[in-house]
C-alpha cells in the first residue's frame, strides 16, 4: 500500500506539470473553473475552436490520447501515468468535452473492430481533434433496452441503405463521424439481428434536429436517416454481430477510470466557508456524508487503477462511479441552494452565487443519472454481475424481433 509516486511516476508527473505550465491556455482558467458540470461553457471564445486548439496542442506533444498505442496517435503510457496526467491536466481537461464520446467510446470500438488501414486513418484524426465523433445508439423506442432499436440497414450491392431515427445523440451537430447501430434482420431474436457501422455525418439523407434540454442547453439531438448510404467497408464486425460490437462501446462507457468524475464537494466546502457555516453541526453532518462518498469514489478509482496496473481486467465494479456521482451531485446542488437561501433562486449572470454553478449543477445532474446506463440499469449490473443474483425475467428474449410486444401493439 503506497499512495505516493514512485520515482518514475514523480518524474512523469514533473514532465506533465512542466508541459501544462508552458502550454495550457491560462487565459481560460478562471472561466473553466466556473464552467458548469457536464457541459463545457465558455463565453470569451468559441468552445469548439478552443477545444480543437487544445486537443491539437496535446496531440503534437503526445498528450492527447496517452493510453493509446503510438501508431494510432497515442503515447502508450501506463494506467497509472494516465491518472497522473489527468490530475495534472486538471481544469483544462474540461476543454476536451467535445471529444469525450469519441475518445472514450467510439475510439476504443474502432480500435477493436476496424481494419488496420481504417484505424491508422481514423484514430489519429480523432486524437488530434480533427474529427469529432458521436454515438448513434439510442432511439425513441429503445434506450435502456438498446437491443430494441429499429433503425433499418439494408444491403444493396456493396452499400447499405439506412432508414430510421436516433435520439439523444450528444454533439451530433459538431460531429464528423457517428458510430451507428442498426437492425439488419428483424426476423431473429433482438440481440442477433443488429449490425454496427461508422457513418460520415455529412452523408446525404442525414438530418439533425437539436433538442432543447431542461437545462436550457442543446447538446443532444434527433438524427433522422432517409436512404443514407454507407459503404460496406464501414461495417464494424459481421452482419448480425452488432450487439457484441456495442458491448465494446458500453464497457468503455462504464469504465470511466481516473476518479475524475466531478461531484461538487470541494466547491460546496468553498461555499460553506464563504458563508461561515462550517461549524454548524447540521451542516457538518451533511458535508461529511457528501465528502465521504466523494473520497470513497476517488479511492475506489485508485483501487481499480492499481488492479489495472497489475494486469487485471476492469470489471463491473466500476459501475459504482456514475451511480454514486449522479445522486451525489444532485444532493450537493440541492443542499448548496438550501444554504444560499432565497438568493439560490437567482440564475441572473453577474448576480448568481459563484457564477451560478450550483444552479447549473441542479439542472444538469438529473441527466447523469440517466445517460449511459440509468441508475436502475447500473444497480441491475451490480446485482447480477458482481453479486451473482438472477437476471431479470425477459419476456422478449427469445421472440423474433418483429413479434415483440410494443406500446403500439398494446394499443397505448
Amino acid at each position, binding site marked *: *500500500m*503506497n*499512495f*505516493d*509516486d*514512485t520515482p518514475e*511516476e514523480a518524474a512523469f508527473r514533473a514532465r506533465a506539470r512542466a508541459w501544462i505550465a508552458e502550454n495550457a491556455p491560462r487565459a481560460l482558467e478562471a472561466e473553466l473553473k466556473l464552467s458548469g458540470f457536464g457541459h463545457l461553457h465558455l463565453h470569451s471564445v468559441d468552445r469548439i475552436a478552443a477545444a480543437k486548439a487544445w486537443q491539437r496542442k496535446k496531440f503534437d506533444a503526445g498528450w492527447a490520447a496517452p493510453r493509446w498505442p503510438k501508431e494510432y496517435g497515442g503515447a502508450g503510457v501506463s494506467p*497509472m501515468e494516465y491518472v497522473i496526467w489527468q490530475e495534472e491536466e486538471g481544469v483544462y481537461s474540461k476543454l476536451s468535452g467535445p471529444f469525450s464520446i469519441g475518445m472514450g467510446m467510439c475510439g476504443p470500438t474502432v480500435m477493436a473492430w476496424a481494419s488496420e488501414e481504417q484505424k491508422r486513418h481514423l484514430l489519429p484524426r480523432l486524437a488530434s481533434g480533427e474529427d469529432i465523433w458521436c454515438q448513434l445508439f439510442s432511439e425513441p423506442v429503445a434506450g435502456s433496452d438498446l437491443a430494441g432499436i429499429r433503425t433499418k440497414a439494408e444491403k444493396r450491392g456493396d452499400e447499405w441503405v439506412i432508414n430510421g431515427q436516433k435520439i439523444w445523440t450528444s454533439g451530433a451537430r459538431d460531429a464528423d463521424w457517428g458510430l451507428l447501430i442498426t437492425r439488419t434482420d428483424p426476423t431473429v431474436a433482438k440481440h442477433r439481428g443488429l449490425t454496427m457501422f461508422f457513418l460520415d455525418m455529412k452523408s446525404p439523407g442525414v438530418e439533425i434536429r437539436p433538442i432543447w434540454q431542461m437545462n436550457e442547453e442543446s447538446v443532444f439531438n434527433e438524427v433522422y436517416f432517409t436512404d443514407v448510404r454507407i459503404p460496406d467497408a464501414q461495417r464494424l464486425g459481421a452482419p448480425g454481430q452488432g450487439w457484441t460490437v456495442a458491448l465494446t462501446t458500453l464497457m468503455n462507457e462504464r469504465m470511466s477510470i481516473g476518479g475524475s468524475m466531478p461531484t461538487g464537494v*470541494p466547491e460546496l*466546502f468553498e461555499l460553506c*466557508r464563504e458563508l461561515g457555516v*462550517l461549524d454548524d*453541526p447540521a*451542516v*457538518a*453532518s451533511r*458535508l*461529511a*456524508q457528501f*465528502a*465521504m*462518498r466523494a*473520497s*470513497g*469514489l*476517488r*479511492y*475506489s478509482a*485508485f*483501487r481499480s*487503477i*492499481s*488492479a489495472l*496496473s*497489475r494486469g487485471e481486467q476492469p470489471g463491473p*465494479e466500476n459501475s*459504482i462511479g456514475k*451511480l*454514486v456521482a449522479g445522486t451525489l451531485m444532485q444532493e450537493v446542488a440541492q443542499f448548496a441552494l438550501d444554504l444560499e437561501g432565497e438568493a439560490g433562486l437567482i440564475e441572473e449572470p453577474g448576480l448568481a452565487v459563484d457564477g451560478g454553478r450550483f444552479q447549473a449543477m441542479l439542472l444538469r445532474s438529473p441527466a447523469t443519472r440517466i445517460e449511459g446506463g440509468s441508475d*436502475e440499469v*447500473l*444497480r*441491475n449490473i*451490480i*446485482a*447480477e454481475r*458482481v*453479486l*451473482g*443474483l*438472477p*437476471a*431479470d*425475467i425477459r419476456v422478449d428474449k427469445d421472440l423474433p424481433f418483429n413479434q415483440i410486444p410494443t406500446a403500439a401493439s398494446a394499443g397505448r
Partner: protein
Amino acid sequence: MQFDFSEEQRALQGEVRRFFERACPVSTVRALIASDASHDAELWKQVSEQGFLAAAIPEDMGGVGAGYLELCLVAEEAGRVLAPLPAVSSIYQAAELIMIAGSHAQKQEWLPRLASGATIATIAVAEAVGEAVPETITARVSDGRLSGIKRPVSDGLAADVAIVVAQALDGIGLFLVDLSAPGVERRPLKAVDPSRKQAEIRFDGARCELLGACGEGWALLSAMRDRAAVLVAFEQIGGAQAALDMARDYALGRYAFGRPIGSFQAIKHMLADMYVSLELARSNAYYGAWALATNAPQLPLAAASARVAAIQAYKLCSANNIQTHGGMGFTWEFDCHLHYRRARYLASVLGTSPLWERKLVAAYGRAA
C-alpha cells in the same frame, strides 16, 4: 502508487481467515452471549498465541512488528466472524494510547503484556448521556487517587487495567488503574451487543498512575481515536461484508411467487446499494490504512472519512440483511441480529457519527 494490500499481506489475511473460521464459528459467539463470562478467554488465548493482534506492536515491546496494514486485515477478519474478543479495547485503543502517550518505562511495563494477551486493558471515558466532552467529565484525581463512575466501559469486566479519562489539577489527564486494586468496584451492564460486554466501574480513591502529560489527556485521547478509528473501520467492513454475503445467499435460496427472491428488482437493488456503500467504506478504509501505516499528516481526515463511511455501511448492510430475511431475520435464532447489534456497538465506541462528521469537516478544512 500501489493502492492495495500486497500479496504477502493477502496471504496473511487468508491465514487469519482460516484460523477464525476454525476457531470462531458463530456458536462460540452465541455461547458467550448466553454466558456470564466477560469474553471468550479460550479464543483470546488462541488468537494471542498466533500473534495476530500484536502485529503493530514493535518487536522490542513484545510485539510482532509486522505493521498496521497487517493489523487492519486481522481486524477485518475478526469483524467478519463477529469475534467476541476485547481487541477494540485492549489493542486498537489501549495499546495505541500507551504507544503514543506512555513513558519508556510504561511502554516496557504494559506493551509486552498486552501483545501477549496476558493482560487485557480498556479505556474508560463515558459517564453521562450525550457526547463525552472535557466539560462533562466528573471523574477526578487528587493525590494520585481516582474517584468517579464510568459507564459504560467496554470490556470493563474482562480488563485487568483501565486507562481512565479524569479531571486533575492541570485539566484532563489519562490515568492507568489496576482494576483488581482496592477502591474499584465493577458490575456488568446489559447492553445492545451482548457479544462485546459492557460494565459500570466505580472508583473510590483507587490508586492510579498518570499516562502522558496531565492537561494533554483529551488531545491524546483524540489522537489515539484517529488511529483506532481506522482499525475499527476494518472490523466494520468485515462485518458488513458478512451481512451482505448472508443476504445474497438467502436471496438466492428463498423462493416466493415461484422465483428466488433475489430475482426481484426491489431485492436486487437493495443489495446493490449495500454493495455500493460497502465499496465506499472499503476504499475510505484503505486510505485510512495507508495514512495510519505511514503516519501521514492526512490521518485525521482519512480516519474520519473511514469511520463515517464504515458506520454507514455496516448499519445499512446489517439492517437490510434482516429485511432480506423477512420474518426469519427477526428471530433470535438467525444470526442477522448479531450483525445489527455489532454494527451499533462499533458505531458507538470511539464516539458516534456526529462527532466524526464534525472531525471530518474540520480536517477537510485544514487540508484544503
